[in-house]
């Protein structure tokens, strides 16, 4: 059972189901999508904790001319994210399966393709392979948004793709440059394999511009201010399952890229631009938060809140402290689990308000929909990272890391925590509480809608009791990936051990 199977299984399913009559495709996909989930969980189960290195590695030469390998593997950084991916995609497919889609075969094919691409991006251990998957991820969403979206879908999807591909293309150049310059500098043969590139550090000047290219690609994908131009339109037009996985998983790929590629490969630049990145993240937090409690579109509240969350993640990564990194990883997991059900719930709310997602027209929905209200409450509390939720554990670690790195920034970042409480509760109260809204016709959530949400809520609650689940596997790998930057930052490995080890008496 190699990773390759896991990666390509969803696509295979997507292709296979297109043989079925359209009526059945949805259910079939939803059921079959349990297979990748199962496989992923089996990997999680077999994952050996306490190893920094890769596990379940598959390594074939793909393009020998460039030393490009098809190398996939799991380590502490991506194992949880892989599982998250399968979980969210399964949830989305389950959610879609109970609805009518025109051209269903295509729809589920693209969903499958998307899942394969995301899994590939997470598992890729070769720089070029990662770039390829990273760009490939976009295509299915281009179609999903353009064909099944709402409103100005074509405009929105074009904007989305161009915005993100602009970044990706720069990243392509940067990636190739990384390999080429490295091989020139050290006289080795051209290779894109991350593990080997890690030993071929680039000169400081090249690191600087390469880093910026990567950063742009990732920041656009997340997106952070000021690269969020596509966000509002894109999220507003995407069909719910697509937007759920997009903000749940795809944005994580970018964050993961920082952790997996940028930090180990360009430690000098990471330290050099640390403050810049932290400031960008900080600005995004403040900015997205203020937008989130201004906008009246329920969906956009979620969208902007995820921008803020991702900003927190970046904050954690670029604290260049293991606590921050761990927090970021945990937060990736949590945010994915929270944002997807939120989008499903937004859809459910829209159904109860004549299709409108404007919170001004909602209100008092909790009446006659206590289950929906309860689910929503749990998710929203997790979203505002209430202590006791795993999100809080993540934010706690992130902010602790930043606190150690740059005190002032962490203090300001706490404004984001408060803001999160404000806008989350605002959207909850404006929809669920208060007098009955003008268009509101509340009724209890149906099983088919509740199932994916409830499943995810269960996971959220489980994590809330045991956040360690998201931390214990990544510990070693994270230290490994952070080490170069830390050394570069002046904290020698010894110092690192001192800082981190002091707690464990």
């Amino acid at each position: 059972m190699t990773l390759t199977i896991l990666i390509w299984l969803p696509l295979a399913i997507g292709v296979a189901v297109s043989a079925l009559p359209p009526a059945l495709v949805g259910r079939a996909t939803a059921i079959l999508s349990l297979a990748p989930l199962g496989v992923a969980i089996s990997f999680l189960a077999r994952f050996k904790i306490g190893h920094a290195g890769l596990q379940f590695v598959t390594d074939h030469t793909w393009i020998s001319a460039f030393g490009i390998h098809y190398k996939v593997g799991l380590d502490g950084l991506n194992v949880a994210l892989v599982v998250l991916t399968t979980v969210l995609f399964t949830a989305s497919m389950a959610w879609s399966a109970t609805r009518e889609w025109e051209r269903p075969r295509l729809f589920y094919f693209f969903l499958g393709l998307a899942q394969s691409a995301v899994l590939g991006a997470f598992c890729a251990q070769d720089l070029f392979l990662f770039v390829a998957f990273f760009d490939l991820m976009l295509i299915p969403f281009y179609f999903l948004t353009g064909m099944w979206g709402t409103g100005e879908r074509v405009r929105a999807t074009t904007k989305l793709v161009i915005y993100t591909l602009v970044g990706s293309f720069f990243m392509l150049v940067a990636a190739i440059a990384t390999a080429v310059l490295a091989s020139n500098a050290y006289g080795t043969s051209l290779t894109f394999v991350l593990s080997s590139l890690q030993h071929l550090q680039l000169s400081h000047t090249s690191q600087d511009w390469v880093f910026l290219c990567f950063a742009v690609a990732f920041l656009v994908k997340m997106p952070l201010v000021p690269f969020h131009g596509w966000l509002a339109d894109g999220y507003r037009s995407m069909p719910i399952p697509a937007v759920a996985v997009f903000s749940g998983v795809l944005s994580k790929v970018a964050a993961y890229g920082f952790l997996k590629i940028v930090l180990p490969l360009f430690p000098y630049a990471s330290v050099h631009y640390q403050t810049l990145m932290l400031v960008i993240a900080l600005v995004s937090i403040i900015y997205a938060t203020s937008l989130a409690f201004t906008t009246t579109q329920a969906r956009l509240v979620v969208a902007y809140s995820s921008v803020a969350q991702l900003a927190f993640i970046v904050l954690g990564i670029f604290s260049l402290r293991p606590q921050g990194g761990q927090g970021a990883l945990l937060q990736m997991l949590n945010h994915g689990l929270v944002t997807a059900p939120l989008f499903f719930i937004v859809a459910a709310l829209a159904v109860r308000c004549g299709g409108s997602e404007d919170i001004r027209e909602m209100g008092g929905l909790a009446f006659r929909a206590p289950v929906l209200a309860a689910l929503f409450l749990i998710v929203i509390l997790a979203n505002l990272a209430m202590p006791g939720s795993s999100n809080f554990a993540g934010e706690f670690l992130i902010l602790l890391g930043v606190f150690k790195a740059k005190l002032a920034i962490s203090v300001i970042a706490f404004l984001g925590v408060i803001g999160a409480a404000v806008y989350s509760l605002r959207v909850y109260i404006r929809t669920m509480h208060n007098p009955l809204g003008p268009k509101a016709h509340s009724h209890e959530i149906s099983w088919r809608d509740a199932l994916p949400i409830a499943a995810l809520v269960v996971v959220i609650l489980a994590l809330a009791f045991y956040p360690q689940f998201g931390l214990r596997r990544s510990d070693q790998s994270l230290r490994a990936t952070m080490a170069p930057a830390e050394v570069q930052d002046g904290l020698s490995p010894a110092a690192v051990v001192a800082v981190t080890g002091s707690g464990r008496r």
Partner: protein
Amino acid sequence: MTATTFGWLVLLCPLVGMVVIALGYKVLPGRTPGWIATAAIGLSFACAVVMLVKLLDLPTAHRQLTSSLWNYASSVGVNAKMGILVDPLSVFMVLVVSGVSTLIHLYSVSYMSGDRGYTRFFAYLNYFVFSMLLLLLAGNFLLLIVGWAFVGAASYLLISFWYRRTTATRAGIKAFVINVVGDVGLVLGTFFIFTHTGTLDFLQTFAAVPHVFHHNSTDLVVGCLLLLVGAFAKSAQVPLHTWLPDAMEGPTPVSALIHAATMVTAGVYLIARMHPLFELAPTAADIGAVGGCLTLLIAGTIGLTVTDVKRVIAYSTMSQIGYMIMGAAAGAYSGALFLLMAHAFFKALLFMAAGSLIAAMAGNQDLDRMGGFRRALPFTFGCFLIGGMALSGLPPFSGWFSKDDILAFLDHRGGGFEIMGIAGYIGAILTAIYTFRLIFRAFLGAPCPEAKELEEGHLAHAEVPTNPQTGEVEDTDVGFPGPEHHIAEREWPMKVAMGTLAVLATVGGFLEVPGVDDAIRRFLEPSFSTSQLAASVPSTGADWIGLVIGAAIAVVGVVIAYRIWVLAPGTAAVIRERFAPLYRLFVNKWYFDEIIDYAIVRPAQWFGQVAETVIDRTLVAEGITGGTVSVIGAVSAAVRRTQTGFLRYYVALMLLGVSGVVIYFLVAG
């Protein structure tokens, strides 16, 4: 089965209760949810008692037990376990909380019956108790913060329990956000301490503190101040107090449980728990004490003018907690906790009585419309009177012993604390005045219509239910107090609960009679073994002097109140005229809401608007995106315009290119 096992059980009972009630929301009939909830809390009280016993078995030196189930978040140097700390302090608090909660649950069983949200109410209530107990038993900072935020969330849920009331939801979000501010303070303070100690565990921290911090070191002071922010937000101390009066939007039992007996006292617990830190950072401690002192004065003044029954009690709560904070910060830990316990008793009692009173008024809480309930609600009147006397510190009620214990300690410490002590006495006189203002106006004097109706034997019911705050007509299908009301006289559970508390409020003081016994101090001693302040106690004589002064002041206050509202009812108006500006200041609650609104809320909203309209639409959408697009578009248009279709133009351009290329080569060559 050690004490910690029962500690876990204490936590488990309410949690199970909540889950059961929540899941059974469709099937549980009638008052069953209420009984289940009460049973759950009662059980956990029982466990707490057992825990106490187990703890008392141990020698004094070994009365600090920890136990952890699993790693909560422990990686890269952070060691947060799912662990509890059982020591006299926590046991004491657990006992108070679970005990009072049991009674309040019992009270609610009947008081809330007839409410559409009956099941939800008890689920929330159990959840709250669970959170509170978690807060108290937490063995490390992370878990403390968790419990800290949980109680905040529970309080939010219960404040906006009648969620169709916009006033209720607004009050809820206000409470929640201010509590989050507190959480943030707590977290940041934790960071400051953690970065030096490298551990989150309480005992390890306390062990490490003396070694890593020198006296009054900046980081420690800042950290402690941030902890104080948390404490102040939770305990409604100036300037983070504005949520508490609004929190009265919640059902009365909620006010009794959360906003009087338990949650709001968490701040006191925190300071007591963190005393090793505070004693090493006196600056922070003193600031805390001052804050408490200010609060008790400000709250007292406001309490004089407010006419909403529950709000008066709420302000009195603020001022009482002001005493506790002041005391705890100054080092009178046992005194503060003593007052905390006593306050839990008599303040819960007061709220319950008020609840009964309000029920009799068919939901109306306006003091101006009340009067003469003495005969209509004899039991309630009795309870109210006991509670009032305890609150205003009349001997021999619990309030007398406890509060004046603190004040005596302050005088004993001397210096700046003397002044605080005096302020405390001023506060005491205010307390006595507004408390008895309440009693006299509500129960004495000419009976109001509702009172009369009740004397004829039937309870008044509002024909059109309206929101007591805004007066707008209530949305009655859900999330609303419910059509019928329940008064203590007719519901034995309420009677039992109130009666028990009345007794406790009366005799509770005798746990600690200077010179006679000091059960509480002795019991708590192990928790404060390291503290120098706790060791130095005023002499018995000093204590007694303090008590006497306190009693005298209380009596004076009562007399003044009697003079103003019973003998010469017009006086109040006269005073109001005389001190018009002062009155305006008090009746507007010192304008705190307005200040916060203008200083923080509005700017934030304004920035949000600007961000959306100006920055996002104009700058990002038009500026960055649109700019690029339009530039490319212009170039594209230019290119296509040159494509005229005129063959000869093509040739011309080509030849132009030729000469250009040739020139390049001639120049380059």
